[in-house]
């Protein structure tokens, strides 16, 4: 009662203030609809489309690299252009293709799998996407300026990246772009962590979560804990470049080895950030097409957790040749061997899932089986690197190039291709042609192996990484010629894959609900899923929730009716308002980022040259960002309510008026 009295007293003192809303966008379509969307499915789509655009860019860069290396003493590219190509190929493929493709699935699939109506912080989710786009733009501005694209490798080892050795703005753009991409990834990851832990449907206990959702959770934790290391490393190099500090300035006591440690404390968990989502996708596809539950679910989950955990203790195996001393080398070699164990456990669980299953060879399954085999080859050559003496021989050679392409293409990309195929009917309501799908699989599979298998031998024969050309008498020309031919087969396969996807999006055969007869909750939705996802929040009774629901339709119908009633009693389905501020805030970041990284200081002789266009543009961008975030905070997160007809169409919506309930 005391609380009641006090509360009434306070209400007299100041009436609750209404949210301060300048503009409440309601458009669902058109440019405004996309710029202001907070729907996790549309944001996932944006991530996917952007990643595919950058996949073309990164793929063309790869083709240039291979054309240059096709024959000895080639002059297709200059050595400077070649450095830009391999730097931007790696940076693009890792940060602008595989990570955002993972994010596309996290966004689109994960909230559906846990039975949520959206992510925990929908506007923040949109913010993460727009910052990603800003980072990607800043990273690529160099192609269009006199400074050229970043050319210090994706690892950006100091002191090569210091002002002394890279005086142009190319490295500034690389630093700023990566910094923003890190911010984007972290904001996204915070959101996914809260969503998975807090927004599960009734009955969806942690040990009933689909494995893909588990892997999303582990990946998000890896992002949250590893990206700070590269953020600080980038801050340090940025301070060195902009303000003349001494972090990596050897003459004043700086230690370039520090960069390597900070970078790889991020860089090795990053490898698992790229592969864990792939493992999650595979763990969804194999059970569906083997018509069996996943073999050893808890073991798959816990081995994912131990991969994530051990992933923080192996970073120095990238640095065996730096002379760390025998103790450190032995410790990191042991940890690296140890981390192969949970990975191997997963492989055996997947084989166990296939074992005795009723296997149906559809295109997603072909890519998934391709993953299993190719990722295993990449994993085995990875274990070879854990032996420090052997690694000393392989370090910086094409053997390493072969290894990580088997992990990143044969692993991550195959799984992502499988996942796109698998969830395409759910996302767009159309089914991809099996013929064109399988044709693209075989071309990608053959092209990939023809390209990268010879690189093992090239590496063992001593061909160094990042070399822009080589002499005829080295005995490398056959391997390089074969690899280049393979690249074109791989490129053709990828082209057919994506042309098929685009064709299917517009013209493909319409499909019914749950075309694969799958097991997890997202398949209980009509395709494409409506904006509010679930008409009635699902109740989960078992690990493969949708499979259980298909077997017990009466129980599910009764619970759905109860949930619908409960929703109506609370005033309808709660939906988040759209907002323009995440987009505007990232526009501020783009302007500020250009100010920091692209524009020259006012007076080069009075370095760092304080006042001038550089400072003005930076402050302008910062101000736009600050004002946007302030308005964002003031518009509130009330949301609105919708009421549905029985067929799922929207009966009424109070979108224009603020919702009364919380």
């Amino acid at each position: 009662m005391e609380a009641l009295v006090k509360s009434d007293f306070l209400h007299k003192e100041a009436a609750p203030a209404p949210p301060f809303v300048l503009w409440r966008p309601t458009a669902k379509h058109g440019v405004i609809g996309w710029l202001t969307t907070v729907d996790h499915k549309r944001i996932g789509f944006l991530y996917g489309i952007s990643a595919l655009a950058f996949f073309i860019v990164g793929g063309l860069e790869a083709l240039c690299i291979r054309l240059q290396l096709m024959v000895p003493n080639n002059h297709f590219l200059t050595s400077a252009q070649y450095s830009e190509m391999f730097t931007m190929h790696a940076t693009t493929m890792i940060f602008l293709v595989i990570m955002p493709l993972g994010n596309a699935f996290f966004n689109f699939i994960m909230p559906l799998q846990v039975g949520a109506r959206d992510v925990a912080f929908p506007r923040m989710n949109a913010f993460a996407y727009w910052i990603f786009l800003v980072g990607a733009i800043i990273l690529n501005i160099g192609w269009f300026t006199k400074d050229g694209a970043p050319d210090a490798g994706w690892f950006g080892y100091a002191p090569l990246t210091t002002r002394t050795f890279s005086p142009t703005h190319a490295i500034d753009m690389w630093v700023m772009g990566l910094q923003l991409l890190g911010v984007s990834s972290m904001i996204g990851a915070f959101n996914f962590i809260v969503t998975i832990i807090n927004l599960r449907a009734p009955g969806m206990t942690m040990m009933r979560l689909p494995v893909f959702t588990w892997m999303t959770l582990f990946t998000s934790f890896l992002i949250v804990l590893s990206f700070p290391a590269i953020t600080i490393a980038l801050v340090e190099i940025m301070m060195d470049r902009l303000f003349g500090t001494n972090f990596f300035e050897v003459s004043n006591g700086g230690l370039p080895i520090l960069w390597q440690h900070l970078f790889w404390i991020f860089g090795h968990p990053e490898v698992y950030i790229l592969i864990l989502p792939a493992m999650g996708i595979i763990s969804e596809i194999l059970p569906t097409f083997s018509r069996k539950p996943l073999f050893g679910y808890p073991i798959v989950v816990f081995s994912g957790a131990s991969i994530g955990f051990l992933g923080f203790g192996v970073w120095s195996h990238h640095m065996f040749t730096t002379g760390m001393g025998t103790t450190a080398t032995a410790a990191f070699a042991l940890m690296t061997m140890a981390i192969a164990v949970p990975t191997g456990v997963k492989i055996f669980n997947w084989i166990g899932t296939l074992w005795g299953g009723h296997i149906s060879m559809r295109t997603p399954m072909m890519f998934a089986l391709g993953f299993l085999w190719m990722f295993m080859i990449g994993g085995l050559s990875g274990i070879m690197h854990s032996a420090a003496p052997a690694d000393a021989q392989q370090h910086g050679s094409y053997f390493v190039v072969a290894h990580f392409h088997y992990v990143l293409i044969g692993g991550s990309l195959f799984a992502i291709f499988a996942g796109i195929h698998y969830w395409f009917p759910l996302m767009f309501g159309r089914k991809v042609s099996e013929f064109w799908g399988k044709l693209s699989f075989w071309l990608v599979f053959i092209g990939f192996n023809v390209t990268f298998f010879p690189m093992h031998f090239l590496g063992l024969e001593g061909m160094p990484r990042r070399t822009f050309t080589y002499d005829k008498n080295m005995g490398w020309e056959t391997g390089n010629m074969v690899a280049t031919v393979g690249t074109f087969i791989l490129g053709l396969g990828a082209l057919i894959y994506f042309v098929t996807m685009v064709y299917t999006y517009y013209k493909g055969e319409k499909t019914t609900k749950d075309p694969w007869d799958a097991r997890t909750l997202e398949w209980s939705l009509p395709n494409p899923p409506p904006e509010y996802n679930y008409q009635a929040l699902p109740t989960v009774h078992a690990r493969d929730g949708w499979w259980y629901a298909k077997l017990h339709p009466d129980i599910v119908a009764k619970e759905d009716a109860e949930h619908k009633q409960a929703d109506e009693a609370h005033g309808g389905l709660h939906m988040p308002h759209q907002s323009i501020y995440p987009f505007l805030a990232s526009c501020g970041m783009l302007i500020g980022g250009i100010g920091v990284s692209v524009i020259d200081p006012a007076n080069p002789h009075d370095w760092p040259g304080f006042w001038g266009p550089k400072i003005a543009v930076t402050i302008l961008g910062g101000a736009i960002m600050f004002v946007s975030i302030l308005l964002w905070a003031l518009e509130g997160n009330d949301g609105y309510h919708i009421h549905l007809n029985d067929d799922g169409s929207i009966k009424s919506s109070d979108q224009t008026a603020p919702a009364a309930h919380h």
Partner: protein
Amino acid sequence: MSTAAATIDHHHDASTSTGIPNKKLLMWAFLASDCMFFGCLISTHLIYRLHPPPGTLPAKQVFSIELTSFSTFILLMSSLMMALAVNAIQKGNLKSLRWSLLTTILFGCIFLGCQVYEFREFVFVKHLTITNSILGTTFFTLTGTHGLHVLIGVIWLSSMLIYSFTGRLSEKDAIDVESMGLYWHFVDIVWIVIFTAVYLLEYL
């Protein structure tokens, strides 16, 4: 609705799977990553401390431990006032909330003032700058980053103080103040680590 507002359960959120409010979970996740941010900066300082180039000014001759001890004490006391502010809003006591917030802001500003004074002393009297030595580089970057955290906290607290007068902040928003409190306590705890690793270590 008014009776519902009067009996808000500040320790359990029925709308989430775990009962933990989303904003609180978000803040915990953020603080986990902030640990790594400061961890990397502090490690950088400690590694470079072991490798001073010849002719480096000993840190002991630069630091003024009396001033820093005073500002450390003030910052710790601000945590006490922050805890009182969280307690006040959870009881719906806006008057007490305002006094507690004001004191927290004031203490935060005193800490920042001490830091500004300290930086000026170091640069203009002791001639330790961010560019002229590795100690200056790591010291100013690390403590500057912490100072930035305090500054953001002060701005955030000030907005809460203002909104407690306009009606935008009331008992139903206790979770906002509580999340802010988590941030503020974290920034204080980090300072304890920095004070030990950067300052006290030099006097061993």
